[in-house]
């Protein structure tokens, strides 16, 4: 049953060094506040899995939290490269990063397989592609009924999945809407799930087919308003495109990246303090 707690306590209680950690959110509802807390608590040797490791994983990788990355598209959406990811892959900084890469259809199916308690997922892909040559987790199988060749990939079963959602009620039932990505599958595939939300309300007032994660599927719920920024929370705030662009310059050099992490994350106590530092460092006249 979900415990309603602080983000600091939830990450300390549920994320351990060496875990397979999924922090999902497809452009929308990316759990940035939780990512910062993982950095703040200096978690190490994590295997990070995420379909689109954008700026959130660039921060975790550059801060030295990760030994391995499982992913299907690694870029800064609408801007360009993830410089910390590239520095780790191309030059082993701050430490070597093993990568295991897939396609989106593949990885989203792998979460479905995890949630379904199946050992693997299958799909129509990769015939003729070089990806299976460099990822021994992509294999081909024969359909026992038709003889067709299909790709098979192992299920993703995270130790912990972290997502951000719009609302929870006081029991810890979680409601999310808009672009849902693989959040539901990633939660149901994991041993434990931590959810940050924009607000905790008395009544979710959700229609019957809404995407709800019942409280008993979630270990911890933390109220962290703004916790998906600089990504967006549908119905609450928009994507901060300027930050994604600014990140390109911050992350390009090791020194500017380290200074940013030090000032904004390591020297702040929680996400509210981080938000205050961000507000203080904006040029006058900019939101």
């Amino acid at each position, binding site marked *: 049953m979900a415990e309603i707690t602080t983000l600091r306590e939830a990450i300390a209680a549920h994320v351990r060094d060496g875990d397979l950690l999924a922090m999902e959110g*497809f*452009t*929308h509802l990316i759990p940035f506040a939780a990512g910062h807390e993982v950095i703040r608590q200096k978690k190490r040797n994590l295997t990070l899995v995420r*379909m*689109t490791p954008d700026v959130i994983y660039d921060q975790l990788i550059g801060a030295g939290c990760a030994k391995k990355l499982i*992913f*299907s*598209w*690694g*870029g800064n*959406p*609408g*801007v*360009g*490269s993830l410089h910390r*990811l*590239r520095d780790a*892959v*191309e030059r082993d900084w701050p430490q070597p990063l093993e990568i295991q*890469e*897939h*396609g*989106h*259809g*593949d990885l*989203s*199916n792998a*979460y*479905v397989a995890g949630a379904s308690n199946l050992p693997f997922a299958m*799909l*129509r*892909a*990769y*015939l*003729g*592609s*070089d*990806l299976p040559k*460099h990822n021994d987790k992509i294999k081909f199988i024969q359909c026992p009924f038709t003889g*067709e*060749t299909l790709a098979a990939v192992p299920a993703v079963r995270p130790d912990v999945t972290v997502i951000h959602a719009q609302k929870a009620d006081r029991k810890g039932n979680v409601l999310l809407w*808009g*672009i*849902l*990505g*693989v959040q*539901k*599958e990633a939660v149901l595939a994991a041993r434990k799930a931590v959810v940050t939300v924009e607000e905790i309300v008395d009544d979710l007032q959700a229609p019957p087919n809404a995407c709800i994660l019942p409280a008993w599927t979630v270990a911890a719920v933390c109220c962290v308003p703004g916790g998906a920024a600089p990504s*967006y929370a*549908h119905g609450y705030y*928009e*994507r901060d*495109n*300027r930050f*994604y*662009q600014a990140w390109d310059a911050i992350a390009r050099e090791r020194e500017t990246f380290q200074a940013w992490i030090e000032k904004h994350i390591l020297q702040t106590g929680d996400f509210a303090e981080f938000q205050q530092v961000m507000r203080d460092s904006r040029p006058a006249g900019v939101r």
Partner: protein
Amino acid sequence: MNPAGYTTNEMMTVAAARLLRNGAVCFVGIGLPSTAANLARLTHAPDIVLIYESGPIGAKPPVLPLSIGDGNLAETADTVVSTPEIFRYWLQGGRVDVGFLGAAQIDRFANINTTVIGDYSRPATRLPGAGGAPEIASCAGEVVLVLKQSARAFVNKLDFVTSVGHLDGGDARARLRLPGKGPVAVVTDLCMMNPDQRTKELTVTSLHPGVTREQVRQATGWQIRFAEALQETPAPTDTELSVLRDLEARTRIAHGGAGVVSA
């Protein structure tokens, strides 16, 4: 801007947009494909169905999305489904007519690389990776590719085959029993190419106005072939240009000055 009053990028986007028929179900990559698909929707193809891999089906964004999961895609869609559902029911289920993709590198059989430049384990340049392209390349009814032409992008041999076009040509796709027909057109800032019916090798079928064969040869890493009946691409019309420019201007304002990556 050339003397004709439009840029080569605009010519490329317009030429790509024209390939999308009204009513087609189109799986759209971010960047250039998304720009061209929305131009098609705002000109000759108002009933085109745009699917983005983040989950929106039938998106009608008022401005171009900066990312593949922008809120305006969800707000304007006919429905929003989960990402696994997009790939399982809609793409693999055979409901996508056209996969519309970009690439960093392409070869003569329209196989594409979006993974690495150089060696995989010690890459010279690490690119973002596959995204949904391997599944789109397999399962979309057909594929249209749009990318700027240069000898660095149009290479004799790919450093990495991320997503298949026509493999080594001929009937290779059919032999592998791939569900979709594969690439049917490549649109660049210089020309249009189509696979030869028999060999599947890309052949220049239309030069954009003012472009010479020599320019195309210089910008291609293999001995590029030209169709016997080589056409000239019709220049963008005033309507196409004004709709495209309005869309891009609205987009710049909406994203607070943040530009749309179009290549």
